């Protein structure tokens, strides 16, 4: 079994010579495959999918394309190349050499960070398990599977860190990652957004647009880590996360495009009758996904986040491009505060406001895609603008969890909220409608009526390429 590990598990961590990893993987790999078969993409084990496999971190190695059966996918373990003489870039240890081994005093915190990040990866695969049945095209089906196998690989990446650096505790945590399941009432995933259902393709594109963007910012913050193996792992994961967001952004763009075309073709605002997703309905999906993603960043004021920064474990987005002392011992931050009279501001230590800072970067980034969607809408001479709801809207975590607000930020009492929320969030009826649009299209070159085809195919292949072979 050991002899062919280097072949079946592409890696740049000298896996074949690492007894500790080999021993850990001997147990974990079969458990992972069992999990994939039970909880991964439904009924897909026979399909051959045109997938990109990372076989090395070189520029020509990270994107190797071929038709493969997913259970045989070569989930690899890759760390970005080490930077020579890397130093810790922030916090109390700023300027000291980055750690190549887990510092004993931060073992618990690091493990918690890695487990929390790792838990989201298989969660999304579980959430998307049924989507393969209703893909609007072979191209989209292939993208779904690509996202799935890469989320699987991201799980491997986190498990590698647990196996390589956390001993027995790490092995147990790695097993637990396969034992929690999205939406399982007894053993749910750690973060609530990863227990929500993703059972229609509009939600999938929203997920890859918003949730995976949260993933990007979390990974970016972890890639600043003073613990070098975590940093290097996350840097390589970011290249894959970018593709997921590409799937989300182009997916939503194609829905917007198709809706606008239908509005123009049939000269109607309500495209439901002609099999499209009306723009106000899209807005509701955005309202829902964006607001639950804000919750993913945690409380605006967080002692844990402050500790992670001070300890040098989790930095800010693009730490090195920031023009400050990167220690933030005495720096302050203004954050909102809910009072009887409404929303006021309060001053806290900048370190305690790390979650909010990262979330604000996420908001800016999320807005950019919406701007591009709105350009498409404008180009069709339609007077409608997709917007991100206010940060106070529909929140369950943090300062705003105790109040209710409209998407524009107006405060509401509980009664008004109950009365109005169906105007802003998807209703069961609307979800049923969207699900009704989800008819599978499996002929090469064909596509469902609610979404436009992509401008170009994968890896230079045409749209009508047989991205998935069902035989």
């Amino acid at each position, binding site marked *: 079994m050991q002899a062919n590990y280097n072949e079946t598990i592409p890696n740049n961590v000298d896996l074949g010579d690492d*007894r*500790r990893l080999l*021993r850990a993987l001997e147990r974990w790999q079969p458990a992972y495959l069992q999990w994939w078969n039970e909880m991964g993409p439904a009924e897909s084990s026979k399909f051959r999918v045109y997938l990109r496999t990372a076989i090395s971190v070189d520029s020509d190695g990270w994107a190797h394309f071929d038709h493969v059966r997913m259970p045989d996918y070569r989930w690899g373990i890759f760390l970005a190349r080490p930077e020579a003489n890397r130093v810790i870039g922030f916090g109390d*240890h700023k300027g*000291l050499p980055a*750690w190549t*081994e*887990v*510092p*004993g*005093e*931060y*073992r*618990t915190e690091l493990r918690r960070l890695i487990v929390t990040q790792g838990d989201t990866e298989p969660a999304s695969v579980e959430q998307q398990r049924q989507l393969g049945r209703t893909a609007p095209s072979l191209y989209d089906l292939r993208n779904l599977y690509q996202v799935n196998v890469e989320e699987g690989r991201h799980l491997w990446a986190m498990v590698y860190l647990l196996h390589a*650096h*956390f*001993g*027995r505790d790490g092995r147990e945590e790695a097993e637990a990652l396969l034992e929690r399941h999205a939406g399982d009432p007894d053993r749910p995933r750690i973060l609530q957004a990863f227990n929500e259902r993703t059972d229609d393709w509009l939600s999938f594109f929203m997920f890859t647009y918003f949730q995976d963007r949260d993933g990007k910012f979390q990974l970016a913050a972890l890639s600043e880590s003073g613990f070098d193996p975590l940093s290097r792992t996350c840097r390589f994961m970011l290249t894959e996360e970018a593709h997921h967001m590409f799937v989300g952004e182009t997916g939503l763009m194609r829905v917007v495009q198709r809706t606008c075309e239908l509005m123009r073709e049939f000269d109607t605002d309500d495209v439901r009758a002609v099999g499209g997703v009306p723009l106000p309905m899209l807005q509701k999906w955005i309202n829902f996904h964006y607001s639950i993603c804000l919750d993913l960043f945690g409380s605006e004021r967080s002692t844990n986040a402050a500790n992670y920064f001070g300890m040098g474990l989790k930095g800010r987005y693009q730490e090195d491009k920031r023009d400050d002392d990167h220690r933030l011992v005495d720096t302050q931050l203004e954050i909102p505060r809910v009072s009887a009279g409404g929303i006021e501001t309060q001053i806290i230590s900048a370190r305690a406001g790390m979650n909010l800072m990262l979330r604000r970067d996420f908001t800016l980034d999320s807005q950019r895609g919406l701007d591009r969607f709105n350009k498409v809408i404008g180009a069709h001479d339609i007077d409608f603008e997709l917007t991100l709801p206010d940060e106070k809207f529909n929140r369950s975590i943090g300062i705003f969890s105790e109040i209710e607000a409209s998407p524009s930020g107006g405060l509401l009492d509980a009664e008004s909220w109950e009365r109005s929320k169906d105007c802003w969030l998807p209703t069961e009826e609307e979800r049923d409608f969207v699900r009704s649009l989800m008819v599978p299209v499996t002929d090469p070159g064909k596509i469902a009526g609610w979404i436009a085809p992509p401008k170009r195919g994968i890896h230079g292949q045409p749209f009508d390429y047989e991205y998935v072979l069902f035989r």
Partner: protein
Amino acid sequence: MDDQASTAPQHPIITFDAQPDGYKHWRMEIDGRIATLTLDVDEKAGIRTGYELKLNSYDLGVDIELHDAVQRLRFEHPEVGAVVITSAKDRVFSAGANIPMLAAARHADKVNFCKFTNETRNAIEEATSLSSQAYVCMINGTAAGGGYELALACADIVLVDDGSSAVSLPEVPLLAVLPGTGGLTRIVDKRRVRRDRADFFCTTGEGLRGQRALRWKLVDALAPRTRLAEVARTRAESMAANSDRPISGEGMQLTQLDRVISSEEVRYPNLAVAIDRTARTATFLLQGPDSPPPGSPEEMMACGDRFWALAVARELDDAVLHLRFNEPDIGTWVFRTTGEVPLVAAHDDFLLENSQHWLVREITLFLRRTLKRIDVSSRSLIALIEPGSCFSGTLLELALAADRSFMLTGTFEGSNLPPAVIRPTRMNFGPLPICTGLSRIETRFLGDAAALEVLQEHIGRDLIAEEAEELGLVTFAPDDIDWTDEVRLAIEERAAFSPDALTGMEASLRFPGPETVESKIFARLSAWQNWIFQRPNAVGSGGALELYGSGKQPDFDRGRV
């Protein structure tokens, strides 16, 4: 991983070496079965500068000599069945711990000093009860505070009845601290002074004299000045008559320890302590015996103090004291051993089979005291049980004393040493209790008689890591792949926690089960005292300890906490 490694100790190193002919503050005289220890403190010979040891008050230096004397009387004088402690100063027995010394000492030094003096007083009680060498205190004048506390450690207290000499515990009214060297605990727990009387006694600065002191059970006998020595002698002789120690014969001379101290290491013949200042860790490597035990106590006597069990106890004891006083920043002690498990077990058997021999008994009691010293040390204790180690019986106690133990499952890659084993012996089931009176194994399985029974069935058996873990004798049993990281992370993590919180946590977890006078002194009394030692009412600029002798009255914060 730490940005601040500890540095080598700044002060001149304190050692615990002493020889009767070099004592500055005590005189030891032997007359037949009675030894007399006479306190005659040299005012100018404090162990540090800046204070004078007036009125037979003591500092660490005085107590190091007392510790040495108590130890030597047990080992070097088998014929001594009773010891009289008295003073050479006219109308003064002892004023207790020197106040200017205490006021000037750093908090850690106060705590260390009190702990050591407490241990010596416990040793005095142990000599009385277990070595058949009873202590009589002949109080020839004022015995205040620590002076009276020294008397309280003795089995018998004779007070001069001269109309003025009193025993007292004036700490609360005069100094705003406690009689922390066992005083509060011993008067009610050991001497059974009624607690309301004790309350009065401890708040009356001048103390009690004569008949009232006797009636209240603060002393056992009174004697007029002219007959004091005679009364004390008579009482000592009747105690000596009950002693089972040999009436004559050679003692065991305790020669100067063979010890080399450097900033990275303390080395003895059977023990090397390596100090890693970055990790703030001291690693004890104890060497097991290299040959079988002697065939008889007589052969053991012929070995002198190089006899393994005695030598290793002396070296370990000295190393523990050295690290406590001179290496306060080294917060974690790691215990390792090297040698043959069967040889350690054979030495245990020798000690147990000859336990009636006075010296064998002394050696076993010394091991017991040394292990107790480790228990009450404010350091994190970790035992590493690796191939080639000899954690059996007495040495297994180190692993049982540890806050956490790691035992390697299997072998190290590339090593031809067989897997590590531990072997429990009868020594683990009674002769070496902790301060609560329970053995470390009983403490580990408190209230679980069934588990103890199972363990007793494993006496004399070699247990590999999986068995030891299953039986609950070790905490973790990683294999060689995990070993380095698990151990490194445990030690690094430990070094990162607050030393204060660790001390409190460890002291709370190490001693489950019943209380004894000893455990109360180390826990309740010391904890209160150490709290008071931090409070402004004692040590603030207007605190009583600071103002003592200045004539100024302390300005207390009147709030009750």
